[in-house]
């Protein structure tokens, strides 16, 4: 039976992974994801989960050990943040090329330097192009739900790709929230046992991770791209199943009060709920604004985006990372690219906000909505702005 529990979200992420009966965890400490593997190690130490917990000596080894364990057909989970994700970097594109369904929680944190342990999205944006499915959670409930959904998505025979769930460092990882927890029976009913397509075992000899010469490399890249693009069908199907069993609906882009809105804001992660409150406030002030919450970052939901922005005049895209010297922030550039061919696309403004733990407040979103309204009259000169820089 589903139970309502108040818990720190990092702990809840660990509990959700344990409900998925994971076989192997390999993780290395880094703030702010640390409470996830810590709590998992507690669950294993108490005998509530029969799993091997490998206390590796680095994140590089964490993801490497995940590859090895997934290679033999184990269900595998890891978690990291920021520099840890960077240190995994060498292995990240290999996991997806080898089609190993590793699931990873990322407690999003700014990349150094200066060293900073607080939240932004520069860690995941840096590795967005490596062939992983990438989800963003806006609250604890979504973290729990997405982790359970993740194994079913990643391990699906038509997908077989690694997947990361992004939860904002501190703003989500360290916050205590009430969450609905399905019981073991309900999770077992939703999530079948993992049956690998191929596994390392003497009874079925296989070579994994072979050398790709120029003659096949392009085809291998095309195959990886197709696998990721095609995974959307499965993601949507599994989200539908989730909704049928648990009653909570998931969509690639969730719309909030967008109907008839001239101005749209687009956010990801923990900003979503603050932005919702800002939209309510704007409506009180008779300003026509709505919100798009982007949940599915990879594969990018271009089609859903095009539908979602229909009729809007200005779209204000929030980015929580800088693409230094680039055309826009990473999300801004993606969205401009996806909408470029639309004849009636809205004007796009791009605000880079909330870097390295700088608070993003309700008032900030109201200001940005006002900027968007201004932009409708007079297009800003710059393609993006780093918002709220002091002294400028």
């Amino acid at each position, binding site marked *: 039976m589903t139970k309502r529990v108040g818990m720190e979200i990092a702990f809840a992420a660990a509990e959700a992974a344990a409900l998925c009966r994971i076989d192997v965890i390999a993780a290395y400490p880094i703030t702010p994801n640390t409470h996830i593997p810590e709590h998992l190690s507690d669950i294993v130490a108490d005998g509530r989960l029969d799993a091997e917990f490998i206390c590796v000596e*680095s994140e590089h080894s964490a993801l490497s*050990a995940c590859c090895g364990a997934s290679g033999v*057909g184990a269900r595998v989970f890891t978690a990291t943040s920021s520099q840890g994700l960077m240190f995994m970097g060498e292995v990240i594109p290999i996991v997806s090329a080898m089609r190993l369904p590793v699931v990873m929680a990322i407690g999003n944190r700014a990349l150094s330097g200066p060293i900073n342990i607080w939240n932004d999205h520069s860690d995941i944006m840096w590795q967005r192009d490596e062939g992983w499915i990438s989800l963003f959670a806006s609250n604890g409930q979504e973290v729990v739900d997405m982790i359970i959904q993740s194994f079913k998505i990643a391990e699906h025979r038509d997908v077989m790709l690694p997947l990361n769930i992004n939860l904002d460092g501190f703003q989500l990882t360290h916050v205590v929230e009430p969450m609905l927890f399905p019981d073991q029976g309900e999770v077992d009913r939703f999530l079948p046992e993992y049956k690998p397509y191929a596994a390392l075992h*003497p009874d079925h*000899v296989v070579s994994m991770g072979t050398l790709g010469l120029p003659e096949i490399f392009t085809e291998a890249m095309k195959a990886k791209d197709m696998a990721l693009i095609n995974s959307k069908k499965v993601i949507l199907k599994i989200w539908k199943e989730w909704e049928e069993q648990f009653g909570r609906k998931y969509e690639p882009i969730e719309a909030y009060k967008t109907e008839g809105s001239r101005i749209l804001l687009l956010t990801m992660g923990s900003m979503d709920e603050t932005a919702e409150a800002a939209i309510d406030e704007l409506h009180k002030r008779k300003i026509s604004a709505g919100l798009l919450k982007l949940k599915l970052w990879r594969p990018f939901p271009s089609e859903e985006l095009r539908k979602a922005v229909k009729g809007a005049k200005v779209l204000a895209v929030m980015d929580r990372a800088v693409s230094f010297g680039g055309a826009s922030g990473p999300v801004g550039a993606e969205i401009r690219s996806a909408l470029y061919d639309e004849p009636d696309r809205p004007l796009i403004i791009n605000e880079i906000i909330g870097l390295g733990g700088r608070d993003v407040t309700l008032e900030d979103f109201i200001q940005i909505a006002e900027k968007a309204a201004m932009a409708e009259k007079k297009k800003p000169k710059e393609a993006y702005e780093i918002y709220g820089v002091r002294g400028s």
Partner: protein
Amino acid sequence: MNIVENFDLYAPRLVDKEEYFSVGHRACQGCGEALAIRLMCKALGKETVIVNATGCMEVISSMYPTTAWKLPWIHVAFPNSASVGSGVEAGLKVLRRKGKIPDRDIKTVSIGGDGGTVDIGLQALSGAMERGHDLLYVCFDNEAYMNTGIQRSGATPFGASTTTEPAGLASSGKKAWKKNVTEIMVAHNVPYVATACHSYPFDLMNKVKKARKIKGPSYIHCLSVCPTGWRLPPELTITAGRLAVETGVFPLYEVENGKYRITVEMPEKLRPVEDYIKIQGRFRHLSADEIEMIQEKVIQEYNKLLDKVNNLHSWSDLKE
């Protein structure tokens, strides 16, 4: 006490006829490493998973869509064959415990070259050994980054000319001595550590068999002659390996629970290192003085080893 006795009786007719590392791979003529891997696989047998670091052996054996491997095999990247091996071992263990795979003893064996072991992979190796996985790690040491074109590694010997620390008018090749990872592994309190060389095939296979039976971590450092990188005619591969041992440059020994033992018959008086050096182009620039320096170091290192052989006890004898 030996873990398995009477290894000396190991004879050619007892060697597994099955080839687990098959012909048709793309190694250079006279490749000592490919030979050592073939022998290692025969000693390991079928119930094995191989984890291969990036390097010559991965490149020559796994060109898609071909493979030389008749054992389950995985390659992920350069520095991580020990950590991928850790995951393989942990995965096999938990799946066996949960009854998801047959209840059989499958050995995980991670392999890497000297670059992948003593340099970029040392951290992962140290971590895996410290954690105590049931994992055999074999380093095939050809004393430079041969796959990328003979660059200097921590395992390159003093005085050898490589493409990144070459001999020149103002240089005599590598200025530092070879890193001794075998001893670093002993310092990890690994129950079984050994050196080996393909020129002593039965000694190599015996050591692999012994390590195969250890329940826990073990390490074998296998000198693998590389005619291409050592500037040596391919027909001298076996000779060079034997000379490395007979000159004391690379003595063959094992350390079982802390107890050192020389495993092959050594000449009463070591052969001069010059015999080993003069057949290799990588040393051809060395002066008589530099060869003398190497000679002194080799004797000193060999005596250090003999001192351990003569004076160190098995840990189990040190309980009181």
